[in-house]
């Protein structure tokens, strides 16, 4: 890992620790094991969404997935109705979720590669479609419940005192590191992100690779939707809405620039943690919502400014 990708990880990691200490000083108990566990679960939910967002952004050419929130909400709705509170329905629900994520991801991918629609427009349009579908499907009434097994998986200590979702997140972290660092597909993601025409001349199937990124993003969002359903117990309207912006911010905080071509998922995981800890701290300080948003936004801008400075000039 080069210094350029490592530096944001150090900064973000250092800030997580600093914020935890600050939180503990201001409000004793902020850094208690239970609180850390709770924040980690929230970070895991965001981190899973950000994994897909990360891939799409790494692929460059203005790659971005604004439809993650819609996929999350639809996935949670579908899963809740398929399992309807029964453990027996868990496996079909998982399969249904993955299918939902893959289908909408594929549509995004094909729109971007074959129809050459800018990702911003394509995925924003898809978000609109998904929100419309949600309204129709729900008919205004909340429906669907999480299976007990799923709720336990997300919030109850299971192996070594940690809930299953943290193990899942760790597994995704390892899988992403392996994918990006050790596979040809991973190398092709960086190649199309860094210079697509050159990648094409070097034998990279650029359209297939890019389409796959959107499919994976859809699948990650769908998995996150399932877990969020487990976290909240039932699917409520627009449960995924907040994840659009925060997943992008987690990626950028983790050292993957929006221009793509460099970065990685390890940083994104730290970025997700940082984001969640910062939100947690602002909530603990019981600052009003408006003030919280102002501080949050300013902190992000300052942090990103810091990154921009650190990238250095090429001579």
């Amino acid at each position, binding site marked *: 890992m080069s210094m350029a990708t490592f530096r944001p990880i150090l900064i973000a990691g250092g800030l997580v620790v600093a914020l935890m200490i600050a939180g503990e000083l201001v409000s004793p108990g902020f850094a208690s094991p239970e609180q850390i566990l709770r924040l980690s679960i929230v970070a895991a939910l965001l981190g899973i969404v950000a994994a897909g967002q990360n891939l799409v952004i790494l692929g460059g050419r203005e790659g971005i997935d604004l439809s993650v929130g819609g996929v999350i909400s639809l996935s949670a709705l579908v899963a809740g109705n398929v399992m309807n509170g029964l453990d027996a329905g868990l496996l079909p629900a998982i399969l249904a979720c993955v299918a939902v994520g893959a289908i909408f991801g594929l549509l995004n991918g094909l729109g971007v590669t074959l129809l050459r629609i800018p990702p911003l427009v394509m995925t924003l349009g898809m978000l609109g479609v998904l929100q419309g579908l949600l309204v129709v499907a729900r008919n205004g009434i909340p429906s669907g419940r999480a299976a007990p097994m799923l709720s336990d998986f997300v919030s109850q200590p299971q192996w070594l005192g940690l809930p299953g979702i943290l193990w899942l997140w760790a597994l995704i972290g390892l899988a992403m590191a392996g994918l990006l660092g050790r596979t040809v597909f991973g190398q092709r993601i960086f190649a199309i992100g860094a210079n697509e025409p050159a990648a094409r001349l*070097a034998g990279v199937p650029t359209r297939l690779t890019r389409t796959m990124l959107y499919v994976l993003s859809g699948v990650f969002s769908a998995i996150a939707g399932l877990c969020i359903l487990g976290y909240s117990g039932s699917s409520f309207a627009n449960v995924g809405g907040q994840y659009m912006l925060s997943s992008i911010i987690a990626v950028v905080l983790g050292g993957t620039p929006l221009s793509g071509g460099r970065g990685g998922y390890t940083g994104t995981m730290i970025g997700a943690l940082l984001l969640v800890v910062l939100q947690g701290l602002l909530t603990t300080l019981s600052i009003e919502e408006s003030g919280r948003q102002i501080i949050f936004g300013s902190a992000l801008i300052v942090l990103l400014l810091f990154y921009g400075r650190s990238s250095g000039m090429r001579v």
Partner: protein
Amino acid sequence: MPQLTMTDMYKAYGATVALKSGQIALHPGELHVIMGANGSGKSTLCKILAGSVKPDGGRIELNGKEITISGPKAARDLGVSIFYQELSLSKNRSVAENILARDLPCRAGFVDRKAVLARAEKVFAPFRDVAGDDFDLKTRVGDLRPDQRQLVEIAKTFAGGARIFIFDEPTSALDRAQTEAFFRELDRRKAEGASIVFISHRMEEVFEIGDRVTVIRDGETVSSAPLAETTRDRIVAEMVGGETGASVFADPPAAPVPGPEKLRVQGLTSRRLRDVSFTLHAGEVLGLGGLHGQGQSDLLRALFGLEPLDGTLTLDGAPITLPSPRRAIRQGFGYISGDRQSDGAISGRSIFENVVPIHLFKTRAFFVNHATLSAEVDRVLAILATRHGGRMAPISSLSGGNQQKVIISRWLMDETGVLLLDDPTKGIDLATKLELFALIRSLADKGMAILLYSSEDAELLANSDRILVFNNGAVVQELQGNDRTRTQLTRAAFEAA
């Protein structure tokens, strides 16, 4: 008395010293050529003069008075105008607006369109006849051909009343007639007392128009002499330094015994090509000559599956189609472009990642096995004597020549049957060029079939076994044996199909 002198100019970027001791004295009415390998500091010296780079040391005198140049605007106010190698035009504005971009005529705060057209017309007049029939001052620059864009860039440099002009590789995209029109304009400006700084990698051009040449090597000015008192070989020796100066402009190679037929092309027609037919043998370097942009690059790109084509292609006796680069690579074709930044380097990624993609594709690998591949990568990098700071260093940390070596290495990991070279040495220093051509010859000797397009006639003549001369998308003549001379090539190039 010199109009402008620069003494002991020094510039460092962090630990890298770009310019150690740059000296130059510009006299009015003189065309002063700066020669040097890539990274020697010649561009840095020019950028200091143009105000886009701030020097860390040195003294600049204009008409005997010491000055400091605080920025590009200050440089323009002092009468310095620069032509940038990387084009500085806005694609979405018209030709006329681009030419006058630095000083648009306005009336009451709004751009005066009539005045813009009238003034641009005047500035562009010297190039009007060579710009092509489809050229218009109202055209969007993005819709122009590369040579037309370069003419616009030149006209932009001349617009406004500068006294010192800096041209960094101004003729790379121009054909002969365009170059001559440009040279005539240079002569006119010289006669008016302007000083011209000229950077070129084309020796013939330098001797054609230069009055004085300054050679820079490793950031230091090593010589400055009137061109009449020096020779090509001496300049090369000065640029290269300690190494013995073998002539770059060697005689054409002796015709080798041709190997078996590798590729047969019959009646190839595409957007830019008209009925092109030829055969290429294993072990042969077939040159593509003629004026710029007559279809040479289009042929190479079509053969790499980048452009749809009609016609019959036969490889090793069997018919083939080339619908995509991936299919072409599988058939054993390799393509190297001179446009490293857009078509070669996977920028920002490591040298390793820039070497292995073709191998990974050909072997249908799923995992990247760093341990096994690293030995192979080091092997192919060593074939070209690539100078690099470790295979995990970003490719952008290398000089242009070494970047190109990395890109060529891609095709050496596995067998490549037909190598398509699209002006592969563009913008590369002379010493590296010599190395690359030696490599190309050795690849041919090992049985590779090579198609070579070069924007420099001398390179083409010195390195091709046969030369197909192109004009307007068609092959007008094939030069073989003793016909491979500059006169024959030039004559053929101007011959209409």
